[in-house]
């Protein structure tokens, strides 16, 4: 599409001519929201709508059932009853009829005079909405039509607006967009009683929304088997109680895109004004609508490349800006100066599903605000099929993948890669897109890119075909079984793990599966070996080692499933005749909880059907179990359950918890004494106000890690997302082997680390699939490090002196002293024990072993002049006073 600035002016002028100048006197906001769960996935093959189900249900606690919506892009034409040609070329109008009787008038006013209609229908739905549990309001009837603007109408439109020279398609797009504004004005905005509104009008894009949870959209409109390449869904949490129509629900559309949003804007009024100055007036009064209007303006009207749009939405700032190449700086500077007042300010995260007809691309796009104030996780699976996902919570991603894999064995319930975007950064721009494009062989392929167009890839390895039956490898008895004989005889889990990982690279999937299944069988049959094998499996999950041609995601899947089977085969809590070390409890049996008998020590909790929070959740059950005498807990097959370790009270040393699966938010928050091991990635708000104890996370951890912590020791294999250890005091001791995205240890107040205070060690490394260590070029990418801190210290592995003063706001760089090294050395030793990351490797720079002083740097608090005089009151005053009373 050839863009020309004067056309943009003409488009906007035409709008003002048609709809009049906007009313600047008020920018009403219909409801405050912010709370939401968003999810989306894109796939190189069309997949059915039912797969948006699971993640939507898993995120009920992010919505309140007062607004849900879905959008899909890239359909199978047969399902819509049109030809491929019509699907690709025609605009698909989806109009919500709140008052079905208005359809005739609506068609007369807004459709028939202007459009040739290739197909129209009122879409199929359930006969009685009351049959759907949780619906309080009847969803609208939806009238769908495939339309093109009549040639003579378009010709007149072009002439009237001076669009000569513009491509016809561009003009037609504008006509369709403007016609929907007109329709909404007539049947929605201006009328006291709202009758109808356009949900979507783009090509190969559909939006449906209701007052209710998102998954009921799929049920009500019978989309379970409806196929598309890209799906997004939204659980809305409007704060206003009574909602009778879904006008304010997400997604919102521009033209060929649909946007869902989690967060809200502080500058809603300013952005509204910006749009109104350009003749664009919001009709639904939510910041989500405003977001997509900005996107549509910058994309369709101004014709900006996506990178510029993303920069306008989430500007690059601080150190990140300074480190951009000069030509980028020049461009971004102009973008920021022009659009900063429309750049959404506040916590937000967008997921956009787009059809880009010009490049034959279906796109799923996720973008976070500069400060990363909303949760977001991206992931990618690249096997026989390719799928890219972006969600508010990792557990929603896992739910989607599980749903996909249950139906189609080419999918995997475990993705190859999970990551967070770093908002407004030079490293990824805080945005990732998954593009589904023709692969040249009649099919489609999916590729992932960041804001700058740099690809995100996973190593191409052989995918696992789960449908193949597992057979006994020929050499099993001779070569493989013997590997484990010694370890099993000695009940030595580490030895068992060592022989497993020394040989796993050479096995094919069949052998791997057979070995795991066989060990699993042993564990189930021979009680004395149970713990050894569970421990060894756990090590297999936690550690990275060479797998040859095989995918790690496949190994994780196989071992996790086997572990689940082992745990599910344990004696149940109700079975008091069969007593062992473990007892198993699930949601159905939660009322049967009892104290441990005889040799029972550990409670295995099948988390699958537990609520994520509330009085019936598994973490509340565990706190009760602790009071009954249980001290060891294994929680498996987790699906986003929260708060594990909370509610146990003080001084809980001796308690140990192992969490398997998709653990949820607020794990280990407030723990005092116990130890928790999270086998896999952890989510947001982990370890908040932690007092003491041990937390080991074998993966990444989300936002606000250890916010306000007072103590405790934690080891993290991967990264911490934004704002870890904010306002932490006391003496927390933390080893982060990856890095933090930004705002690490802001307002850290953890005393003098050499005198009992707290500190954080950042090693700044990543691991490849096979466990090889790769050190990051910069151990810490963010612009804010240790800001406003008054105590504690950071120990950064930074042999190349990449940390600069500009990143510190109040802290100071210092050389590592012997006392510092003696302080952190034991923690690095422990770190080696948990993750196998050797101190020698940490001290090796470019193949040469260096002294600790050359490798680690200390960031410490600067004593402020104002603090020189410290008053010396203590409790004695109180004691003296109490005595006299």
């Amino acid at each position, binding site marked *: 599409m050839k863009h020309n600035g004067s056309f943009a002016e003409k488009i906007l002028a035409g709008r003002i001519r048609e709809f009049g100048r906007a009313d600047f006197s008020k920018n009403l906001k219909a409801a405050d929201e912010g709370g939401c769960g968003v999810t989306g996935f894109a796939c190189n093959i069309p997949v059915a709508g039912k797969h948006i189900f699971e993640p939507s249900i898993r995120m009920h606690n992010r919505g309140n059932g007062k607004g849900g919506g879905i959008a899909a892009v890239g359909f199978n034409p047969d399902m819509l009853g049109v030809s491929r040609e019509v699907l690709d070329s025609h605009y698909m109008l989806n109009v919500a009829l709140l008052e079905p009787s208005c359809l005739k008038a609506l068609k007369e006013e807004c459709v028939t005079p202007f459009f040739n209609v290739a197909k129209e229908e009122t879409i199929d739905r359930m006969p009685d909405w009351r049959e759907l549990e949780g619906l309080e309001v009847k969803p609208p009837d939806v009238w769908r039509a495939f339309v093109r603007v009549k040639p003579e109408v378009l010709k007149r439109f072009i002439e009237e607006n001076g669009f000569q020279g513009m491509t016809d398609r561009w003009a037609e797009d504008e006509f369709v967009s403007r016609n929907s504004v007109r329709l909404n004005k007539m049947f929605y905005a201006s009328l006291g009683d709202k009758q109808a509104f356009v949900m979507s009008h783009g090509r190969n894009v559909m939006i449906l929304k209701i007052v209710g949870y998102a998954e009921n959209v799929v049920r009500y409109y019978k989309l379970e088997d409806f196929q598309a390449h890209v799906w997004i869904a939204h659980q809305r949490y409007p704060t206003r109680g009574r909602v009778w129509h879904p006008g304010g629900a997400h997604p919102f559309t521009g033209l060929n895109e649909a946007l869902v949003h989690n967060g809200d804007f502080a500058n809603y009024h300013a952005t509204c004004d910006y749009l109104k100055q350009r003749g664009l007036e919001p009709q639904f009064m939510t910041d989500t609508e405003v977001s997509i209007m900005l996107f549509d303006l910058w994309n369709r009207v101004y014709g900006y490349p996506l990178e510029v749009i993303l920069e306008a939405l989430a500007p690059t700032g601080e150190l990140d800006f300074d480190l951009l190449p000069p030509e980028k700086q020049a461009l971004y500077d102009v973008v920021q100066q022009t659009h900063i007042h429309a750049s959404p300010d506040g916590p937000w995260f967008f997921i956009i599903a787009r059809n880009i007809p010009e490049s034959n691309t279906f796109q799923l796009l996720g973008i976070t605000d500069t400060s990363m104030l909303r949760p977001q996780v991206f992931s990618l699976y690249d096997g026989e099929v390719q799928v890219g996902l972006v969600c508010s919570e990792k557990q929603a991603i896992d739910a989607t993948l599980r749903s996909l894999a249950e139906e189609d064995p080419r999918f995997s319930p475990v993705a190859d890669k999970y990551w967070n975007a770093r908002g407004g950064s030079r490293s990824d721009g805080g945005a990732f897109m998954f593009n589904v494009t023709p692969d040249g062989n009649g099919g489609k392929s999916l590729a992932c890119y960041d804001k700058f167009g740099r690809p995100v890839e996973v190593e191409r390895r052989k995918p696992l075909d789960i449908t193949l039956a597992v057979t006994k490898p020929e050499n099993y008895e001779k070569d493989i079984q013997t590997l484990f004989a010694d370890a099993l005889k000695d009940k030595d889990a580490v030895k068992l793990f060592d022989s497993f990982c020394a040989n796993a690279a050479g096995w094919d999937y069949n052998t791997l599966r057979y070995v795991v299944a066989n060990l699993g069988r042993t564990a189930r049959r021979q009680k004395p070996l149970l713990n050894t094998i569970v421990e060894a499996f756990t090590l297999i999950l936690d550690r990275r080692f060479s797998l040859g041609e095989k995918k790690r995601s496949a190994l994780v899947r196989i071992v996790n499933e086997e572990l689940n089977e082992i745990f599910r085969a344990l004696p149940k809590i109700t079975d008091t005749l069969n007593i062992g070390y473990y007892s198993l409890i699930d949601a159905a049996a939660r009322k049967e909880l009892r104290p441990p008998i005889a040799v029972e020590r550990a409670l295995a909790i099948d988390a699958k059907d537990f609520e994520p929070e509330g009085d019936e959740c598994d973490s509340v059950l565990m706190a009760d179990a602790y009071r009954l005498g249980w001290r060891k807990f294994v929680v498996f097959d987790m699906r986003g359950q929260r708060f594990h370790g909370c509610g146990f009270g003080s001084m809980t040393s001796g308690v140990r918890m192992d969490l398997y699966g998709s653990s949820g938010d607020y794990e280990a928050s407030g723990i005092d004494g116990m130890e928790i091991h999270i086998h896999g990635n952890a989510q947001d708000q982990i370890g908040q106000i932690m007092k003491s104890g041990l937390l080991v996370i074998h993966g990444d951890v989300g936002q606000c890690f250890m916010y*306000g912590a007072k103590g405790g020791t934690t080891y993290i294999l991967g990264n911490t997302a934004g704002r870890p250890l904010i306002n932490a005091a006391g003496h927390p001791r933390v080893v982060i082997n990856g890095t933090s995205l930004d705002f690490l240890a802001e307002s850290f*107040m953890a005393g003098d680390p050499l005198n009992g205070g707290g500190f954080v060690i950042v090693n700044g490394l990543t691991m490849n699939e096979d466990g090889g260590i790769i050190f990051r070029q910069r151990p810490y990418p963010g612009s804010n490090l240790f800001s406003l801190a008054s105590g504690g210290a950071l120990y950064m592995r930074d042999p190349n002196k990449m940390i600069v003063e500009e990143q510190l706001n109040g802290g100071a760089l210092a050389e590592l002293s012997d006392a510092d090294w003696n302080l952190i050395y034991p923690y690095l030793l422990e770190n080696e024990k948990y993750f196998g990351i050797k101190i020698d490797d940490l001290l090796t720079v470019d193949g040469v072993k260096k002294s600790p002083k050359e490798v680690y740097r200390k960031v410490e608090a600067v004593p402020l002049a*104002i603090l020189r005089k410290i008053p010396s009151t203590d409790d004695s005053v109180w004691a003296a006073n109490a005595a006299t009373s």
Partner: protein
Amino acid sequence: MHYRNVWSEVPPAVPIPTPSRFGRAIGKYTVMITEACNDCLKCVAVCPEKVFDVQGGKLLPPNDHLCLGIECSNKSSRCVRNCPVSAIRVGLNPSARALGDLRWTPDLLMSTWYMAETGRLPKNDIEYRVGDSGGGFDKLRLVFPKRLPKPDLDKSNIDTSIDLNRREDGRLKITIPIPVYGGGMSFGSISQITMLSRIRGFAAWGSYTCTGEGGYPEALYPFDDHIITQVATGLFGVREETIQRVKIVEFKYAQGAKPGLGGHLLGDKVTEAVARIRETVPGSSLFSPFPFHSVYSVEDHKKHLDWIKAINSRGLVSVKVSTPSDVDMVAVGSYYAGAHIVHLDGSYGGTGAAPDVAKKNIAMPIEYAIPKVHGFLKDEGVRDHITLIVSGGLRTAFDIAKAIALGADGVVTGTSDLVALECIRCHNCESGRGCARGIATTDLELVGLMELAWGTQRIINMLHCWREQLQEILYRFGMSSIRELVGRTDLLTHLDYNADAPDDDIRNPVR
């Protein structure tokens, strides 16, 4: 009876005279005795208010804060006329006028001191209901019916209690006998003695006091059942154990006095004891961030509440927010997130530590916010399932009654408690040695200016007087319970629109 008692026990809610800690309390009038005095002690006999006191046959310096005023003293039966040597002069006290400010006028300060000393309303012409700010509650008046609607009501049995849990969710049912509890003031911002005085004073009345954000000193443990612990943005001193100790947990999202500014405790006040409780560095200024870093949306908020509920399985959850223009949405959002109490903090409050620029310019005045939220919750059909508590510059029993008539269930106070402890509103709370009265300080010497038992009794007395005033107000409205007053805006009038509103002084008799 004396107010001295065992420190770890909750004292009885009985008013006991508790005179000023300082030599001569400040009064509206000053009583001077010239050298001509011959110690004939006639004045002692004629004064009904015990202004004159004797020790060893000698006249002591007069308690001039008890003096009923010039008019009284000039009556033929009273002191001035009866002094044989004309040694008594009664006049306006010039130092009184130097006190306070337009919100807390000298009269209001002195009347509150009087209530805290005696548990009664002042008898002289001191204004005890409103200040002189020219707005807010100072312009609202209660409109009593001309005749008593129900003269048979037993005044002392009029119910002033409110329920704090109206959700029917299986958590604790808590009813407080007075419609007021103590707002959050941290150990660090005030001394431990001040903190405990408030806690014990409110506990005596069966009510609660919030710890503020500064930890939970061990000395508070005997009063766990009367304490609201605060979870605020800095999470100072917040531990699972402190959350589990109490029956009510308060989330502080913002303070009406300084919304959007977070909290700050300057280094001078961060003594070793304060730093120990908060586990920070002594002498380092402490800042609470302005947001909860873990809460940027209402679904985060729900998760946050769920978390506290997972830690404390029986307790109630209060959500304290300031009053932005969309405060109604915030309130209803909190209800849906599972809060039991929504606590609106309006813009008139704050001690001297809150910056003036914030106190005077941000957030909606509470008298606007209350009806807005009350009406919105009613329209949503959830008003009966949530307790609406308000604060922000509520100083007197009349302010409480007005707030409730506007739509609140109950109120929270802070500054008035400090005034009861003889705060003079000098606005130096932020500095380490700034508090001349040893209230808002952690300084070794200044803290010693106040005794716990004394402070406790002052609060008890003030609350006693407030309760009696509320009962009198309800009596005049013919109501048998304070719950009947909620949302009765028809019982209020605004001086801007009704300049000749009748006087609502309850010291005047009623027919």
